[in-house]
C-alpha cells in the first residue's frame, strides 16, 4: 500500500518537475530561442587560418571552385579524390605561353609556367563527398572550397540546389570547340618536340 | 424535450452535410490518380503480409468485459447523485453498499490479475513484471 502511494507521489512529483522545466522554457523563449531564421539570418561562418599559409582561409566546406587560370593540369586533385568526381583533360602546350584564342594564360598567379592547356575540368558536385581531399595536394592552391584564399570573390554558399541534375556538374574549363582543339594540335606537337 | 433532442437529431444531418460538402469539393478539385501501388496497404514500404483482418488477442476483450460492468454501475450512479442531497444518509448507505460490492468485484479481478493487460513471458529479467508461467527455457529454440 505504501508503495502504491509512493508511486503515485513520485509520479506526480516528477511529472510536475518536468512540467516546470518546459514551462520555464516557454516563458523564456526570448532568451532561450536558438532558432536561426535561415533565409533572413545566417550563421556567422567561422573564418580562420587552417595552418597552410593562407590568411582568412575559410574551412567551411561548401561548393568547390577552381581558378582555372591557375590550374596547371597536374591531375593531383583528380588522383586524390576518393570518389572520382573530378575529370581533367589536358592538352600539352608550350610551357608558359599564352594562347588567347582558348583563353589560356601561360603563367599562374604563383608564377608557375603552365605546360598544359586544361581543355576540360569537370567536377560533378552531385557526387562530391566534400571531403576536401582534393584541395590539399594542389600545388597552385587553385582548387578550393569557395570562401578560400579569395573569399571576397567567392562568398561561401550552400545554396546551390538545382532542379536539374545536369546543372550540378560544374565545368570550370571553357569547352573547346573541335576547331579550337585542332588549332591546338600544332602547339601540342611543338611542345612534345 | 422534443425540441432539444430534435435539435440534436437535426444536428446529425447537418454534421453529415458539413462533412460531405468539403469531401465533394475535394472530389472536384483534388487530383486523383490511383494505381495499384498507391492503393496497396501501407506497411512501412514492405509488401503487406496477409490481411490485417485476423483474430485479435483476447486482452482487449477482457477489458471491454470489465468495462461493461462498470459502465452499468456508472449509469446507476447518475440518478443516485441527483437525489443524493435529497435523501442524504439513506442514499449514501445504499450506494455505499452498491459500490462496495462492486469494489469487491474490482478487487477480485485485480487479484486474479485479469486487469493486467498482458502476461509477460520474457526470457530474461522478470523484475516487476514477473510472469505467472514458470519460465523454464532460457535458451533460444529456433
Amino acid at each position, binding site marked *: 500500500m505504501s508503495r502504491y502511494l509512493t508511486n503515485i507521489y513520485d509520479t506526480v512529483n516528477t511529472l510536475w518537475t518536468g512540467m516546470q522545466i518546459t514551462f520555464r522554457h516557454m516563458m523564456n523563449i526570448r532568451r532561450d530561442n536558438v532558432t536561426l531564421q535561415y533565409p533572413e539570418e545566417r550563421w556567422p561562418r567561422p573564418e580562420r587560418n587552417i595552418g597552410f599559409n593562407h590568411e582568412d582561409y575559410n574551412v567551411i566546406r561548401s561548393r568547390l571552385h577552381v581558378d582555372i587560370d591557375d590550374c596547371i593540369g597536374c591531375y593531383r586533385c583528380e588522383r586524390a579524390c576518393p570518389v572520382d568526381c573530378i575529370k581533367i583533360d589536358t592538352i600539352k602546350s608550350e610551357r608558359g605561353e599564352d594562347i588567347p584564342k582558348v583563353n589560356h594564360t601561360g603563367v599562374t598567379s604563383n608564377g608557375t609556367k603552365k605546360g598544359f592547356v586544361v581543355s576540360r575540368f569537370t567536377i*560533378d558536385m552531385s557526387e562530391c563527398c566534400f571531403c576536401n581531399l582534393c584541395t590539399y595536394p594542389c600545388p597552385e592552391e587553385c582548387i578550393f572550397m569557395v570562401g578560400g584564399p579569395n573569399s571576397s570573390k567567392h562568398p561561401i554558399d550552400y545554396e546551390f540546389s538545382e532542379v536539374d541534375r*545536369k546543372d550540378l*556538374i560544374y565545368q570550370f574549363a571553357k569547352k573547346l570547340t573541335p576547331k579550337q582543339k585542332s588549332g591546338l594540335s600544332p602547339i601540342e606537337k611543338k611542345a612534345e618536340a | 424535450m422534443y425540441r432539444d433532442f430534435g435539435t440534436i437529431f437535426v444536428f446529425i444531418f447537418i454534421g453529415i452535410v458539413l462533412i460531405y460538402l468539403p469531401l465533394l469539393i475535394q472530389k472536384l478539385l483534388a487530383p486523383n490518380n490511383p494505381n495499384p501501388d498507391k492503393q496497396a496497404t501501407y506497411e512501412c514500404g514492405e509488401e503487406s503480409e496477409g490481411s490485417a483482418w485476423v483474430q485479435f488477442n483476447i486482452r482487449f476483450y477482457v477489458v471491454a468485459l470489465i468495462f461493461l460492468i462498470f459502465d452499468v454501475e456508472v449509469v446507476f450512479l447518475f440518478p443516485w447523485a441527483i437525489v443524493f442531497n435529497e435523501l442524504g444518509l439513506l442514499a449514501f448507505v445504499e450506494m455505499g453498499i452498491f459500490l462496495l460490492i462492486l469494489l469487491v468485484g474490482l478487487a477480485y479481478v485485480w487479484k486474479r490479475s485479469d486487469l493486467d493487460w498482458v502476461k509477460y513471458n520474457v526470457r530474461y529479467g522478470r523484475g516487476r513484471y514477473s510472469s505467472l508461467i514458470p519460465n523454464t527455457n532460457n535458451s*533460444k529454440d*529456433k
Partner: protein
Amino acid sequence: MTLEQIKNRLSDQFKSSIIKNENLAEHQVEIKGEDWFDVATFMKNDPKLSFDQLECITGIDTGEDGPLQTHYNLHSMEYRHKIEAVISHDRKDPKVASIEQLWRIGDWFERETYDMFGIEYTGHRDLRRILCPDDWEGWPLRKDYEAQESFHGIVVPKIKEEEGWE
C-alpha cells in the same frame, strides 16, 4: 595469459590441427578447417582459456590464386586476453564448420561472411544472405566480383551517362 602460453596450450591439445605458417603475425594461429569446431569448443570452454567473446569474423580473399580465409578474433572477458584464429578455405568449395552455437554472435558474423565471400558454414541453422538481397548474385567481396547489371528492373549504370564523362 600471454600469447605464447595460449598458443602452447592450444598446441598441447591439438597438435595436429595447428598449421605452421611463417606469414602469420604473432597473434595469429592457423588452424585446420576440419578441426576448427573442436578447437573452438575447447577455446571457449577451457577454464584456462575461456574465450567467451567472439570479437570479429573477417573473411579475406587473398587474391585470384590464393585461398579464401576466415579470421576469428577471440577475446576473453574473464582473463582479458585475445588471439586470432585463421582458417584457409579452398577457393572452389569454401566450407568450414559453423561456430554459431558456441558464440551467438557467430550467427550474424558468419552470415555476413557468407554473404560477402560465399564461404559456407556448415551446421549454421539459418545461413542466408544478410546484407545483400536474398536474390543477389555473386559474392561481392571476392576479388573477381562483377557487379550486377540490373536489379528487379532497375538498370544500374556502369558509366556516367553524362556525355563524355569517361
